[in-house]
């Protein structure tokens, strides 16, 4: 019994839960149903205006019905199928098609679509609110709208478009209004004729209609440039050819010899200069707003006016040479192609700033470089002067040795000459000996000349030229110059080279000055030694890195690390006499040759100075 009661209780509880869930679900569905909208377009689906309205509708309906919207669309294509009997057949078909579908809102895009729905709404969507759009107020003027019908009334404002044209073409005296041959087109011709009455007699109004597209193009090609061409619509031409008005307008506008205007936003960007237009997308969005209101309350849908604006194609302004200053302040200028300056003004300014800075920097660097070069030149000149002075001074100190060197051949010449003079007085004359004497005189003369040439070479001033030379030759020539002095100092010099030729680029006088300085320093360092110990060793070699090395070693007391460090500083000397400029000048000469001059820190029994010059 207890078990039976429990089972009954469970069944009741399950029923209650199920019933409650169903009720909640039903309540939710009523609160947020998916709305259904049926849209009738007057034209076919690829008409740009229809596409823009459809896009606006989609955006607007999605925003206003976040729980879901189901859009149905019918394209009536009335321009191509205008017959009333076709409309009747279509209505019958659509009645059957949508018999089982309940719509929340039905919409009409274009006057033809509105007429169709006003005639057939009771069959296709009885009692459903009707929202229309893309219909000129002029076309609605004589229409009696039944209850439950509202919509977005467009202006497709001809007068404001003409006002814009007159503002941009102040000298225009004629307006040519171009319309096609379809019923819609003819409707436009009639409406515009009335609207433009107000502009007479200031403007002469001509209507251009009843022509083929070629006829239209041929006529507009001959328009005076100060004409205002207003292209309204060409759904169909005189030959019955049908067009998308936007495409026809494009061909006509391009052919025209005068600026053209339109009242549809879709015309802007294809060759038409501008107009006072409403965008079809905004019409679609406004229709979506009205649809939401119609589904929320049962009141009659409102009639609202769509908002227009001046829309102008900047490229056409350029084409016709019209100053943008003439545009109304609130005009929307489309397709504006800014100049490079307008587009990249900040970047260009920044770039110009950078360029200016760079130019200034480069200028400063050039000035600085020139100044530095001038200073370097002056320093070079001073270095040369100093080197020359030092060399001259050195040669002055060695003048006695050079005099001896020159006296040797002079002694030979004089002795030979006097001996020869005596010889010619003897009988018989020893001609063989006489020839030898003459030969020796010539050789000694050449020897003297060579010594003088070498001295002159060392005395050259301001030398800067670097020539290819053999370091060994430079050393040998210097050793020859120094030999007399070394003999006087009872100092022996040995010169040894590992290579027969050590090609370097240098200035002979300067390098000889360096070598002479090193030789005399070495001799000086050994002045306190006995003559037998006074030995200078000169060695040249080619290093692995290609540098050519000259080493001058002596057997003197050597140099401490501090002395080695200071030896190349100016005015540092270990000699009682001397300014201490010799090695400083030597180093500056070697550095000017791209080489180095240093003391060998590993040499302890005496000093060894190493000169290294870069290879050719």
């Amino acid at each position, binding site marked *: 019994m207890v078990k039976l009661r429990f089972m009954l209780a469970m069944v009741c509880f399950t029923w209650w839960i199920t019933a409650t869930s169903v009720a909640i679900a039903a309540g939710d569905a009523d609160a947020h149903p998916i709305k259904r909208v049926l849209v009738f377009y007057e034209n076919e689906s690829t008409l740009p205006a229809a596409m823009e309205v459809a896009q606006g509708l989609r955006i607007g309906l999605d925003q206003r019905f976040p729980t879901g919207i189901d859009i149905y669309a019918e394209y009536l294509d009335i321009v191509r199928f205008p017959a009333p009997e076709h409309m009747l057949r279509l209505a019958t078909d659509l009645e059957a098609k949508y018999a089982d579908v309940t719509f929340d809102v039905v919409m009409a895009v274009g006057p033809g679509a509105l007429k169709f729905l006003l005639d057939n709404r009771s069959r296709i969507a009885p009692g459903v609110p009707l929202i229309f759009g893309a219909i000129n107020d002029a076309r609605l003027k004589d229409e009696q709208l039944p209850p439950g019908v509202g919509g977005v009334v467009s202006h497709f404002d001809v007068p404001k478009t003409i006002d814009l044209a007159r503002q941009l073409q102040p000298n225009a005296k004629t307006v040519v209004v171009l319309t096609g041959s379809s019923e819609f087109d003819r409707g436009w011709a009639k409406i515009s004729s009335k609207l433009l009455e107000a502009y007479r007699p200031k403007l002469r109004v001509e209507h251009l209609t009843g022509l083929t597209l070629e006829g239209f193009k041929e006529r507009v090609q001959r328009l005076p440039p100060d004409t205002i061409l207003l292209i309204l619509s060409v759904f169909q031409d005189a030959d019955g050819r049908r067009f998308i008005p936007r495409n026809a307008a494009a061909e006509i506008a391009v052919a025209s010899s005068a600026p053209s205007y339109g009242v549809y936003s879709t015309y802007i960007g294809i060759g038409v200069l501008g107009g006072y237009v409403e965008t079809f997308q905004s019409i679609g969005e406004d229709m979506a707003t009205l649809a939401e209101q119609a589904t929320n309350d049962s009141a009659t849908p409102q009639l609202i006016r769509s908002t227009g604006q001046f829309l102008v194609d900047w490229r056409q302004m350029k084409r016709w040479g019209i100053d943008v200053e003439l545009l109304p302040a609130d005009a929307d200028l489309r397709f504006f192609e800014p100049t490079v300056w307008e587009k990249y003004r900040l970047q260009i300014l920044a770039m110009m700033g950078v360029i200016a800075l760079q130019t200034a920097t480069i200028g400063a660097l050039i000035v600085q470089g020139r100044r530095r070069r001038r200073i370097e030149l002056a320093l070079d000149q001073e270095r040369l002067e100093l080197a020359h002075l030092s060399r001259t001074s050195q040669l002055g100190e060695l003048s006695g040795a050079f005099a*001896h060197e020159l006296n040797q051949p002079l*002694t030979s010449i004089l002795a030979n000459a*006097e*001996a020869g003079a005596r010889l010619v007085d003897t009988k018989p004359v020893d001609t063989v000996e006489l020839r030898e004497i003459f030969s020796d005189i010539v050789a000694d003369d050449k020897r003297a000349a060579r010594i003088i040439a070498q001295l002159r070479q060392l005395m050259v001033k301001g030398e800067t030229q670097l020539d290819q030379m053999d370091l060994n030759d430079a050393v040998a020539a210097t050793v020859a110059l120094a030999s*007399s002095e070394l*003999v006087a100092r009872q100092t022996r010099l040995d010169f040894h080279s590992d290579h027969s030729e050590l090609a370097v680029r240098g200035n002979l006088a300067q390098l000889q000055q360096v070598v002479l300085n090193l030789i005399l320093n070495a001799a000086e360092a050994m002045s306190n030694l006995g003559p037998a110990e006074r030995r200078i060793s000169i060695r040249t070699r080619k290093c692995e890195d290609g540098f050519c090395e000259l080493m001058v070693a002596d057997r003197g007391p050597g140099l401490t690390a501090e002395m080695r460090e200071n030896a190349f500083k100016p005015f540092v000397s270990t000699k009682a006499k001397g300014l201490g400029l010799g090695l400083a000048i030597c180093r500056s000469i070697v550095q000017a040759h791209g080489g180095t001059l240093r003391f060998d820190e590993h040499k302890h029994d005496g000093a060894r100075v190493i000169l290294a010059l870069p290879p050719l």
Partner: protein
Amino acid sequence: MSKMGIAPIVVAIVDDDGAVRRALRRLVLSLSYQSVGYASGEEFLASLLDMVPSCVILDQHMPNLNGLDVLGRMRSEGLAMPVIIITGLDQPGMRAKCIKAGAAAYLVKPLESSVLSTVIEAAIAG
């Protein structure tokens, strides 16, 4: 003045410069003396074991042993033959130094034959 008929007068010329040595030998020969040349002081000193010349012309400016050194060695060995020191580098005080060391004369190059002849004659005449 002829020196023939008596022992020939030999003048030794010591100079490391071959060209000078050869030229001086020719000059001395032209002055009718016998002449023998030596390229260094050491070579000359060694030759004294074989032959002692009548007079020596010594170049002061030679490597290792200079003229003054050779003169010093000669005098220390008791060799008193006349020595004429010649030099291409007339250093201050050198003349007095040489004379004091026992040189018969001190001549600066280049040498004129008349001067050299006179000096040799005077040196030999002693």
